[in-house]
């Protein structure tokens, strides 16, 4: 999905790193091989990056400048909250929602282009005050959830699913907002997708809360036109 953008911008001192929050490389492999990226495509079986950056969902993006400083903290990677607009019975996305999703993605890609061209003077690159204000910081419960998840993943790798199960339950309990913990530990269908009935129930229970927050960016659509 990002390969075209990479091809366009790679000669302007820009690169992409994608990180798959997958328990094993083989789950991610078919997607990576289909995309055939020439940028770094890494496997994060223990969700280190989600823990380090306090992320709760995928896809999430972080913009990092040449000095290794965060200029945009974690946010949906050009994603829009289309999942909430799905028809409950058919699970189809209405046309207006799909168009909004495409527009949101376009705005996001153009913002990346602007940043690559203009660096810190791009309106989309936050200064340190703006960036810090938009950080989401972990609390003790989240830290404990991550530790439970990590040990659970470790036990799972050693074939100890029964020992891992209570740790995953505890991780979910301590960090209820984390979709990455929840979906990684949920059952998957034949295609490897964590879209169980529990998942849809959890989506429906969101109420006013968004699955993907609106990205804080000029020109970003805030809602689907009715």
């Amino acid at each position, binding site marked *: 999905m990002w390969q075209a*953008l990479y091809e366009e911008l790679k000669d302007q*001192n*820009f*690169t*992409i*790193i*994608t*990180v*798959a*929050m*997958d328990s094993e*490389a083989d*789950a*991610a492999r*078919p997607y*990576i091989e289909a995309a055939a990226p020439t940028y*770094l*495509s*890494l496997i994060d079986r223990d969700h*280190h*990056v*989600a*823990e380090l*950056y*306090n992320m709760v969902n995928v896809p*999430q993006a*972080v*913009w*990092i400048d*040449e*000095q*290794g*400083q*965060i200029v945009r*903290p974690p946010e949906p*990677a050009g994603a829009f909250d289309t999942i909430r607009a799905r028809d409950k019975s058919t699970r189809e996305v209405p046309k207006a929602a799909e168009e909004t999703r495409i527009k949101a993605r376009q705005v996001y890609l153009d913002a990346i282009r602007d940043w690559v061209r203009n*660096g810190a003077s791009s309106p989309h690159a936050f200064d340190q005050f703006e*960036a*810090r204000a938009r*950080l989401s*910081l*972990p609390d*003790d419960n989240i*830290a*404990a959830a*991550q*530790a*439970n998840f*990590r*040990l*659970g993943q*470790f*036990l799972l790798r050693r074939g*100890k699913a029964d*020992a891992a199960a*209570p740790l995953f339950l505890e991780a979910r309990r301590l960090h209820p907002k984390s979709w*990455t913990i929840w979906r*990684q530990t*949920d059952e998957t269908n034949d295609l490897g*997708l964590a879209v169980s009935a529990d998942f849809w129930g959890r989506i429906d229970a969101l109420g006013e809360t968004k699955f993907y927050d609106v990205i804080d960016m000029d020109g970003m659509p805030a809602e689907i036109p009715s």
Partner: protein
Amino acid sequence: MVWLVTDDKELNVAGVIADGTALWLSPEVVEHATGWKLKPEGLCRGEICVPIPALRAETFLRDDKINVAEFWRFMGWPVVSADAGDAWMLGQGASARSAALESLEAPDFILPDLDGVPHKLSGERGKKVFLATWASW
């Protein structure tokens, strides 16, 4: 033998007493696993030393072993045990993670690609980096 998992290590350790919420390890193992070294001033790592609370020293130090789980809880960091005490995780605390993010220095990491070759985020220093997460699920 007990499995001890930390932020960056997975160790199989002998000579351990894992008793309920206590995890007694030799100072050598504690230092190797966590970087915390026992000195007269207390437990030290780099420039920082944490004195062992005098009134309950025996919950931390006994028979030349350190109850690293108690130290971890004392510091407010997460401790997880599982599999009837055969596996333990000494996790990073929220304060350290938060402080790292607030510094706005993008936390470094080392992860493998599909071929198992490890790569660091800091290996791309000098370029603008768009870091994107995704998942097959």
